[in-house]
């Protein structure tokens, strides 16, 4: 238990440290931006790193032809042993097309699922909240009326009325 608490505390401290450090020393920090604006050397450095990032993004954004996987598989299977080449799986691989990942495929339903989950959560909270409050009100009201009757007509009569 103590170990878990300690770990949680460590994690919290790490998170705070990271947040503080990144707020103070991240490239977006004001003093860094001010320095870069006035320092030619840093400006050059930032520009060259930006250029590398730009080139990487361009490379990543270039699509290849849809049949590239099929062709690559066909070529690779072509140099394997004949017994492997004739396996049905190999035949399937020769005609396979790139498919989006499961997460990407379901990402279009992400918003709808989030909305539905939010609605369910709201309904659940409302139901539990409303019903528990109603029970509370009922109990409190009964208690108040019993007290009133006890004060007005006496304990015995009040007990008789409310026990019935």
């Amino acid at each position, binding site marked *: 238990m103590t170990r878990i608490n300690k770990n949680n505390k460590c994690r919290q401290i790490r998170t705070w440290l990271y947040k503080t450090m990144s707020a103070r020393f991240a490239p977006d920090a004001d003093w860094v931006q001010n320095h870069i604006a006035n320092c030619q050397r840093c400006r050059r450095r930032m520009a060259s790193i930006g250029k590398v990032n730009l080139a990487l993004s361009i490379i990543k954004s*270039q699509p290849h032809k849809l049949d590239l996987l099929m062709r690559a598989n066909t070529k690779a299977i072509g140099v394997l042993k004949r017994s492997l080449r004739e396996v049905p799986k190999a035949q399937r691989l020769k005609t396979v097309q790139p498919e989006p990942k499961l997460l990407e495929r379901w990402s279009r339903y992400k918003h709808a699922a989030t909305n539905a989950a939010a609605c369910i959560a709201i309904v659940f909270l409302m139901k539990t909240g409303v019903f528990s409050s109603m029970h509370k009100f009922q109990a409190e009201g009964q208690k108040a009326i019993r007290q009133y009757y006890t004060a007005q007509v006496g304990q015995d009569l009040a007990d008789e009325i409310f026990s019935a």
Partner: protein
Amino acid sequence: MAGKAVSYGLIWDFAIAQSIDESQRWVLSAMQRYGQQLVTMLWRVLGNEQDVCDAYQDTFLRLAHYEGRRRPEHIKAYVFRTATNTATSMLRHRSAESRVIGRHFAKEARSGNPVSSPANELDSKYLQETLRCCIAQLPEHLRSVITLRDLAELSYAQIGAMLGISAATARVYRCKALQLLAVWMSKGKEKGK
């Protein structure tokens, strides 16, 4: 007697060959599992469909002939590292070829278009090729990390497991690789001027 021995030998050889073939189906499974990711990575590294097919073929051929046709312990790591190395050697070969051609046409280049110009700076093809050449020149440990992280889009944890380093080390290597690439790319620009 001798004929019987020969026939038994043939049957034995056939049985071994069959068992190897059966056991080598994992090559096809690996192709099915990692093929798409591998093709994407090779395409980003090489940028040429023919080269992608060659590198892909070479990778799986090596996998099929790995240490007496045995299955490597970490297939994913083996496949990705082999593909990265093959693609890098192809890139180096390509850049060496272009240097030879460049020397051949040096006179024309001097009189005509400069290697690096503001127009070229914005030219995406120029940027891509420069970056590819620079990546090929990186030390192996930095190159592997930047290729697997930025071009194969694997997580740091996966890269660490593949290369036998921690995720934090992989992060540091990527940072160093980016710095080196930035320096080299800006130097290339200055040389061009």
